[in-house]
């Protein structure tokens, strides 16, 4: 079944159901056909789950980058939730500046005051996660909301929203953050996260808008509009699902950019450094490392690797999402997973053949 048929049918189904509800409010309904619709709904949900969640997840996990990306991100989430409960709070009970991999009690070594670096990293994670969560929600809400609305509505709405977006996009990122941080002096991780994404949403809004511009004239969207579906419903039913992969890629990019910006600012020492986190560790270790001769390098490497590994995780996952997004690859996997359309298979086979 082509997407346009499915959407028309689901629109028709829901409007009929609404009509049925209005016509007969009593529980003993004569419209027994309602049961058919709810069956269809269940089927639709199952199909939706299969196509939008199960199949993409399979593509993600089968791709080594997806599997690796998911495991790395899960590791950080576990570190920030379970890890904090399991790993004791760092205290100054170790030998000073112990190199890594020497003592099982201090696997990653210690800093200048004898604190275990592993414990410090683990206990800094929740704040980092909070920062990323707040920033990402803020950034994604703005870019998805503004991007889809501007692209779908066009006209005056588009012009105003894009003027705002372009203004945010043209402001230089890091200097803007430095100005804001220097003046506002934030210390709450959530607030820092939001400040860090203050103009990051603009790029996402732009790219989502150009995607919506292509989508809004697709047959099934036009059919839905012709049937009188409201803008909100049309965006929600027809546009957003198609944008999902792009949004997921944006999500990964945003997570990474927030954490990089945060660590960068902590490293510069412009954010308040009274509580411990990866950036503060990088800042302190950079000052603690003796360069000539090179000693205490482990202190620098621990936060450095922690941040890099997170970056690698998000990039791998974004790359894997790119594969989910790629229709040619999706068609290839759909054959084994949900018996995709024959046309797609033929296309995929053709393009595969052409590349050889």
């Amino acid at each position, binding site marked *: 079944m082509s997407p346009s048929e499915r959407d028309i049918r689901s629109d028709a189904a829901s409007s009929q159901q609404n009509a049925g509800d209005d016509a007969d409010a009593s529980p003993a309904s004569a419209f027994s056909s309602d049961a058919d619709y709810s069956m269809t709904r269940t089927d639709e949900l199952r199909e939706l789950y299969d196509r939008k969640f199960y199949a993409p997840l399979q593509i993600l996990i089968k791709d080594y*980058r997806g599997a690796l990306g998911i495991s790395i991100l899960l590791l950080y989430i576990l570190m920030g939730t379970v890890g904090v409960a399991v790993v004791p709070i760092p205290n100054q009970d170790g030998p000073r500046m112990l190199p890594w991999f020497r003592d099982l009690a201090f696997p990653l070594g210690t800093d200048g005051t004898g604190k275990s670096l592993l414990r410090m990293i683990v206990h800094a994670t929740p704040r980092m996660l909070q920062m990323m969560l707040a920033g990402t929600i803020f950034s994604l809400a703005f870019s998805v909301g503004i991007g889809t609305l501007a692209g779908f509505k066009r006209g005056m709405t588009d012009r105003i929203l894009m*003027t705002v977006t*372009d*203004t945010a996009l*043209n*402001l*230089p*990122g*890091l*200097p*803007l953050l*430095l*100005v*804001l*941080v*220097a*003046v*506002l002096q934030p210390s709450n991780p959530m607030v820092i996260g939001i400040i860090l994404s203050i103009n990051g949403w603009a*790029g996402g809004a*732009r*790219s989502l*808008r*150009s995607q919506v511009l292509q989508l809004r004239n697709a047959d099934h969207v036009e059919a839905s509009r012709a049937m009188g579906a409201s803008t909100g419903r049309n965006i929600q039913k027809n546009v957003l699902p198609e944008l999902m992969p792009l949004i997921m890629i944006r999500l990964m990019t945003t997570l*990474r950019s927030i954490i*990089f910006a945060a*660590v*960068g600012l902590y*490293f*510069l*020492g*412009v954010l308040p450094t009274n509580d411990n986190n990866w950036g503060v560790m990088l800042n302190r270790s*950079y000052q603690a*490392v003796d*360069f*000539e001769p*090179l000693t205490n*390098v482990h202190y*620098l490497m621990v936060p*450095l690797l922690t*941040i*890099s590994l997170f*970056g*690698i*995780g*998000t*990039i*791998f996952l974004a*790359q894997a999402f*790119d594969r989910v997004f790629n229709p*040619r690859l999706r068609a290839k996997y759909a054959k084994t997973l949900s018996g995709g359309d024959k046309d797609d298979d033929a296309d995929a086979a053709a*393009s595969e053949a*052409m*590349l050889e």
Partner: protein
Amino acid sequence: MHPIIGRIQQSLITLVAAVSLGFVLIHQLPSGPLDILFGLYDAQTIRNMDPRTIQELTKQYTGFSSNEPLYIQYLQYWESLLQLDFGTSVIYQEPVFEVLAPAVPWTVLVSTLAMVLNVTIGVSLGAYMAYREGSRFDIGATFVSVIVSAVPYYIVAILLLIFLGFGTGLFPNGGRYADSITPGFRLDFILSILHHAALPVLSLTVTSFAALGLRAHSIRVLGSDYIRVARLRGLAERRIVFHYVLRNSILPFYTSFVVGLVGLVSGSVITEKIFQYVGVGWYTFKGANAGDIPLVLGTFTFFTFATVIMLLVVDLTYSYVDPRAEGVGADESF
């Protein structure tokens, strides 16, 4: 409305927004514009000061007098900015403009060099990877560029400094040129500049995302009919890669390359700190660290101005580069 006028209008809006933001932020300080004086004198001295002296000092450091009504202050702020008076730096005790002006060429030099390297390497590598999609070369190169671009540029900068700077001594550890050489338009001076710029440029180049983005786009181009026709005509591989794939896949990236340059320029804050490279970014870092608000706002204005000009030039030239573009800014890439 003509698209060029619209584009210029957008640039002006951005500039106004940036300057207004600066003005609002000065008023957002705990005690408003007067807060800047607290960095200079202790509270007791300020309390004993003549109100007129306080006004003069505020005007000198921020560019407007805080006893006027708000809109007059705002106009005064604009008036001083248009006269290139960005206020006075608290830590250097010099007009911000005079602090920053000598630093600008250095930041521009490093960013431009990084961008040129970036484009050259990114474009050729990306197109070739796409052409050989799925080959061992593609997988290897993709893996390396993914890892490298997953790492923030400042981490690469620190590693380069440790291993190439301090470890082997191949490159200087900081500074813009060797102290022993007197500045002048001579070969040894230019070589010294390039030697000192090498590590900052390298750290900015290595972490760019250009190759992968170009690869993804080239793969899409590779699916086009004209590539198929080119193959069927039996054209040489190199001709297909450079004349057919590269030319078409590079176009949407014209914009993102310049956006990349903008990123490099604003990223110079951290790079210049690490390499002790005294450019605009260095002063931004110094100012933000010391709470020198006029200096930070001055650099912010500089960065905004540079960004706006660069993006304007790109958008205005884009339709010349790609004749298919409908008009200014009609074609967006991610």
